[in-house]
């Protein structure tokens, strides 16, 4: 479903701020794979996700989604294949627009937008049904402005928007990191439910190793722009946080002392 081949990306090349963010990342995801991505700060996790989403062009390498080479397409043209949830709950929704208007925007992801009405009564019923799965009572507030919602509610709504049109690939960029633990748990539950229900091919970045182990069927660890550890199946199921830490030390040759890569 997703094929990354030898992806390289350097930011600010030739300047004092030069940063080799991705150094030959290759990855193959099969349909229905749920991959969790871990790694320290600056390891290249978000950069890899942004490369897949098409936020900027890569320096070299190719990105193929569902058999289609999208390397030369900007993000808004890849949007028909990809659903995205961002780290910042403010990023994924339009605050001054209503809940149903936001959903209607997502409903037309990758489709031609013309002069038909944005929200039709039939769609409204559909949105109400879909919102129920979030368990947040949003189904009764279709015409409320999204700016009135809490961060957790907005993130849950973004998740629903990303999956309203079944995406070929769902990208979650630490989408629970900015939420309080209880809300994060709820959003993660909703994620698990939606991904399972629609059998979505999913990539989820997380800083929480327990979450990385508990969710998905495959786990990859990144370090300095490379994938240094890739585990799936039974081996991943039986993984322990302590083993992950050990792997990290082995691969990076460093004492593990990253403050943000917490045990959770």
């Amino acid at each position, binding site marked *: 479903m997703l094929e990354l081949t030898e992806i390289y990306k350097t930011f600010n090349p030739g300047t004092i701020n030069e940063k080799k963010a991705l150094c030959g990342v290759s990855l193959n995801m099969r349909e229905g794979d749920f991959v969790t991505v871990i790694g320290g700060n600056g390891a290249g996790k978000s950069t890899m996700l942004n490369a897949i*989403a098409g936020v900027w062009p890569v320096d070299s390498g190719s990105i193929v989604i569902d058999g289609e080479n999208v390397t030369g397409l900007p*993000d*808004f*043209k890849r*949007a*028909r294949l990809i659903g*995205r949830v*961002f780290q910042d709950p*403010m*990023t*994924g*929704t*339009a*605050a*001054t*627009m209503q809940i149903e*208007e936001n959903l*209607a*925007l*997502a409903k*037309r*992801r*990758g*489709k031609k*937008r*013309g*002069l*038909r*009405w*944005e*929200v039709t009564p039939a769609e409204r019923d559909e949105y109400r049904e879909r919102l129920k799965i979030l368990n947040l009572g949003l189904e009764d507030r279709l015409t409320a402005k999204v700016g009135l919602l809490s961060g957790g509610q907005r993130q849950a709504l973004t998740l629903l*928007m*990303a999956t309203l049109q079944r995406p070929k690939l769902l990208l979650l960029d630490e989408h629970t990191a900015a939420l309080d633990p209880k809300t994060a748990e709820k959003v993660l539950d909703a994620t698990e439910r939606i991904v399972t229900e629609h059998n979505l091919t999913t990539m989820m970045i997380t800083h929480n190793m327990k979450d990385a182990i508990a969710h998905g069927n495959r786990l990859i660890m990144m370090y300095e722009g490379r994938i240094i550890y890739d585990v799936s199946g039974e081996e991943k199921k039986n993984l322990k946080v302590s083993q992950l830490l050990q792997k990290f030390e082995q691969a990076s040759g460093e004492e593990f002392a990253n403050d943000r890569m917490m045990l959770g």
Partner: protein
Amino acid sequence: MAAYFASLNPANLLGRFPAGIAQGLIWGLMALGVYITFRVLDVADLSVDGTFSTGAAVTVMLILGGMNPWVAMLCAACAGLIAGAVTGLLHTKLGIPAILAGILTQYALYSVNLMIMHMKANQAVSVDKYALVVSGRNVNHAILIGGILAIAVVLLLYAFFGTELGSALRATGCNPEMSKAQGININVMKVLGLALSNAMVAFSGGMAAQYSGFADVNSGRGAIVIGLAAVIIGEVIGEAVLGKRLNFLGRLFFVVVGGILYYLVYTLVLWLKIDSNLMKMFTAIIVAVFLAVPYLRGQAQSSFSRAGKMAARRGEGK
């Protein structure tokens, strides 16, 4: 002083109000264009100073050439559409900041407008010779036509922003990141918004030229500030009248109301025998004050000096 007040005639003021309303309706249409860029797209577009004159120039020259005034105004709108698209392309394709792109277009339009008017700064069009859409000589008729057009444009805009395309435009102004993730080409939306806005401004310019009976190369100077004044006055009044019930349709409606109120104040200032050249300064002050109000209100609730005072008061209490 007494002589000054004695020279003011209240009946005269009332007599001038209808003209103020007519002009306010015409400029209200322009303000609706400014609303699209300033509020919906979140861009301060300065090309309108140029496109307003362009609309006036195109309309008057075409009418002088024998064209039907309504058709001439539509042509003016098309000219504004193109000028707005130029600003949009300067911004999105060449990476020029939106505000500078607008200034460049506006600057270039000064020459373009002179060319349209055969290198004359002023071209008259007489209501006696041509069947103009509106004229300052028949104010009641101008109010009727202006009112109908204003209502029609408000309803059309409201409908447009309820469509898929209109929603994509609103989303682009509200959250570009999210819009891209939903597959919206935000550059196309920006060009579309700027083109639409300037088309309306040029249309209004064509109407204003007929109302005054001439097209002037400087008629659009400061149009952006008057447009902003109308938008902001309309918002303040709208929120005061309707409060939380002020929806999008109401907001558009009150933009036109803002234009009318602006021209009523303008009429009052003239009646007070204040030099009309000072009006630009007053307008700028009004806009600055109204733009500052939301910020200052926020500051009053949360600022360092307030926090400092609170802390000091607490210290005394101990």
